[in-house]
């Protein structure tokens, strides 16, 4: 049973089956129309057959029942689907209602108009003129017969009087009868006595008189007349009873052509009356036929409307089902192509989109796979947090850095991560309001690590969808840098100490040698040697002081500072320091304030001005330029000195590096440190036409 139902469900949705059903309905409608057309040719008694009316009633009632069942079933189904919010039910309901209105309205109107026209046409056909004509035809026939009967009665009476006047003699009566028969021109003249014909005279042309039956004796008891049909004509016989009991019979044969015409007229009148009697039955038959045809049309239209509504919405329902499955997390699947029309185009577009999404999904999976491999392989720890920053998951490197192996397996609560010795890291993550870069020290699993971190929001920074944290273990690097720094410091200190130690040792050896020899020059030698020793010890003292200065730079204290004013005051101190050396300020900032530590910034600029002044030749000019470039402030100190001499500019910023042969070589290193503490940079650039430009860039947002 179920397989049969499945086969039926599969078969009934095929287009050719639907087309065949529709064609069958059209054939039935055509047959109904043919039957209706044939009704006109049927005789009235067939037309008014109750069986036909019964069959039409049965046909109409069956159609109404099927139509109502189909409509109620589908409407109930649609209402339930609409109640449950099934996609497409609203569209189908609208489509079906539109079909019903479009079909029921005109069909009902046409049916009512047809029934009304039919009824009125039938009534008009049975109109008064026609009825009058039929009545006059019948009256004419009756009048003709009555006239013939009256004429025959008068003739019979006249013959009877003349025969009586002829006397009792049989011969005289026969002679009188023959004379009157010829004189009056009757077709029949007869004399009867005691029920027996005495003489009967007939017109030889009226042979039909021989077919007549004899008049019965009872009728002849008194005078009378009779009209009879015989031989396609009408024969009128009248008789008159004489005083002696004899009966004179007179007959007349009416013209056959006239009687035939009268007969046709009378038959038409009778048929008209019969039709009139059956008028309501004819009307009922035709109206029922019309009704059946209209119902058939409505049935076909409603069925077609239901089918079309299903056919229109089925692909859309498939689309919705597919998208709903995708929304539930299932795989997005292609929808079968319904037809080569606009809906098919929509489905094809949807399928193309599904294919593209699948390709992108595959590419994304591939990317994710690669990224996962990379994340598992790199030594940089990567953490991802949800938008609310309540849970976090990381790659194996991050799990190892934070001493939590389970972090690479499943998301962990941030509190759990904090409790494992990563409280400072978690605090930094929770307090980040945007992109953050910095370093933090954690003590995961009892091991202290210096981590460099970068926190980046996912998506819109104002409303991030999540957070990504990159962790770099700087412990080994810092240790190596520290060792390298100490090595460099030791090398430079050794180099700086080694230079004065040699003259001191030579001075001491010279004093010792002169002391062994003795002589008068010992005093001067001691004096010169001590002076040299003191000079080089002082140089060493200066070197130690510079080292202490570099090591003891305090942290910057930023506050709003007018750079233009600060630079102008400083340059004013240098102006006139050397003859023929000019200092000029190009201030493009005006009264604009920036966040800076004025004390340390003044020291850094003084070092740059010192270097520029020392490097500048006679008649030179040192130009200090203040300008804003987008969100940065630039301070440029330009001179016309010897320039960089092709050396690496970065070397000038190393402590104790100097090309001047004097000084501690710590000035530019201090400048770089102060600028870096302000969040800025410094570069040394060769200047066109000779000289150097020291460009300091500070954040000025």
């Amino acid at each position, binding site marked *: 049973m179920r397989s049969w139902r499945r086969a039926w469900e599969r078969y009934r949705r095929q287009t050719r089956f639907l087309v065949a059903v529709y064609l069958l309905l059209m054939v039935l409608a055509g047959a109904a129309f043919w039957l209706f057309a044939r009704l006109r040719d049927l005789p009235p008694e067939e037309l008014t057959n109750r069986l036909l009316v019964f069959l039409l009633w049965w046909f109409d009632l069956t159609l109404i029942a099927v139509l109502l069942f189909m409509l109620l079933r589908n409407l109930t189904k649609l209402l339930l689907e609409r109640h449950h919010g099934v996609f497409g039910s609203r569209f189908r309901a609208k489509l079906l209602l539109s079909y019903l209105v479009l079909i029921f309205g005109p069909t009902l109107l046409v049916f009512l108009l047809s029934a009304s026209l039919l009824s009125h046409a039938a009534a008009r056909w049975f109109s008064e003129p026609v009825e009058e004509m039929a009545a006059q035809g*019948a009256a004419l026939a*009756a009048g003709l017969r009555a006239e013939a009967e009256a004429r025959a009665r008068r003739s019979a009476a006249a013959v009877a009087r003349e025969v009586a006047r002829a006397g009792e003699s049989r011969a005289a009566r026969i002679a009188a009868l023959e004379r009157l028969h010829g004189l009056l021109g009757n077709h029949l003249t007869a004399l009867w006595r005691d029920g027996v014909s005495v003489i009967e005279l007939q017109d030889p042309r009226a042979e039909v008189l021989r077919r007549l039956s004899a008049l019965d004796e009872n009728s002849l008891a008194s005078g009378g007349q009779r009209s009879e049909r015989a031989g396609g004509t009408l024969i009128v016989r009248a008789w008159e009873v004489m005083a002696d009991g004899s009966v004179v019979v007179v007959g007349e044969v009416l013209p056959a052509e006239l009687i035939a015409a009268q007969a046709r007229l*009378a038959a038409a009148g009778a048929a008209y*009356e019969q039709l*009139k009697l059956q008028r*309501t039955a004819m009307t*009922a038959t035709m*109206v029922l036929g019309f009704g059946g045809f209209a119902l058939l049309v409505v049935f076909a239209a409603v069925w077609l409307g239901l089918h079309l509504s299903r056919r229109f919405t089925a692909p859309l329902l498939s689309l919705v089902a597919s998208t709903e499955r995708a929304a539930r997390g299932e795989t997005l699947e292609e929808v079968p192509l319904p037809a080569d029309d606009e809906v098919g185009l929509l489905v094809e577009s949807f399928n193309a989109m599904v294919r593209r999404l699948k390709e992108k999904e595959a590419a994304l999976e591939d990317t994710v796979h690669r990224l996962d491999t990379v994340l598992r392989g790199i030594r940089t720890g990567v953490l991802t947090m949800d938008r609310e920053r309540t849970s976090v998951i990381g790659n194996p490197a991050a799990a190892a850095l934070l001493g939590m192996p389970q972090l690479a397996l499943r998301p962990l609560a941030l509190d759990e991560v904090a409790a494992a010795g990563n409280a400072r890291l978690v605090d930094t993550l929770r307090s980040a309001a945007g992109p953050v870069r910095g370093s933090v020290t954690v003590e995961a699993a009892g091991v202290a690590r210096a981590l460099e971190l970068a926190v980046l929001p996912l998506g819109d920074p104002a409303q991030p969808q999540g957070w990504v944290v990159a962790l770099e273990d700087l412990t080994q690097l810092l240790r190596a840098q520290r060792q390298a720094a100490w090595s460099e410091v030791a090398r430079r200190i050794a180099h700086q100490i080694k230079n004065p130690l040699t003259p001191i040792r030579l001075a001491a050896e010279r004093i010792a040698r002169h002391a062994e020899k003795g002589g008068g020059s010992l005093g001067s030698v001691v004096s010169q040697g001590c002076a040299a020793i003191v000079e080089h010890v002082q140089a060493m003292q200066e070197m130690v002081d510079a080292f202490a200065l570099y090591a003891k730079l305090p942290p910057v204290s930023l506050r709003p500072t007018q750079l233009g004013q600060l630079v102008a005051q400083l340059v004013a101190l240098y102006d006139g320091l050397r003859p023929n050396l000019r200092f000029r300020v190009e201030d493009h900032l005006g009264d604009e304030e920036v966040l800076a530590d004025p004390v340390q910034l003044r020291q850094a600029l003084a070092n740059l001005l010192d270097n520029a002044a020392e490097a500048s030749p006679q008649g030179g000019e040192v130009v200090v330029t203040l300008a804003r470039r987008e969100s940065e402030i630039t301070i440029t100190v330009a001179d016309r000195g010897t320039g960089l001499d092709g050396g690496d500019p970065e070397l000038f910023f190393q402590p104790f590096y100097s090309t001047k042969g004097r000084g501690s070589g710590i000035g530019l290193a201090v400048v770089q440190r102060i600028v870096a503490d302000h969040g800025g940079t410094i570069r040394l650039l060769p200047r066109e036409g000779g000289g150097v430009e020291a460009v300091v860039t500070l954040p000025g947002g």
Partner: protein
Amino acid sequence: MVVCALVLAAALPNAERPGLEVSLTPAPGRLTVQLVVQHEIPQEWSRALVAGAPVSITYRLRLFRNRRWLWDQRLSGHELVVEAQRDPLTGVFTLIARQDGEVLASGHAATVEEAIHWVTHPPPAAVPVPLRHDPLWLVVRAEYLTRYKLLVIPSTVGTEWVTRAVPESP
């Protein structure tokens, strides 16, 4: 109560004037039924008769067995069709009575009154009656013609159904 009143109101005219007089004459194995229509014949019926159209009155006779605990059992049904037609040329009315398709009687009438009297007083019909123990009912009706209400609903014009108990044969 309202329904009862309506039913009584509808039933009263029928009770007063059934429209058909039925006389039963029992005989062994058969029942002679004499029918007389007391209704006035519809005008269109009479007009059609005068105009020469064939018209008829159909008398339907149904014999039932009256059962005590079950519904009545229909034993037989008969049709007595009395036809009348006027010859417009001769003015003579031809009358034929057929019972179940067989000619029962025929005649002629010179006037329409005689013809109508002939069809409303048809010759007696003979209904076979089976031997039985239960009482029998004869239900009779005369039908003149069919009209249609609202164009399509058929409605038979005739007398009411008249029920008579079939008397025991002597």
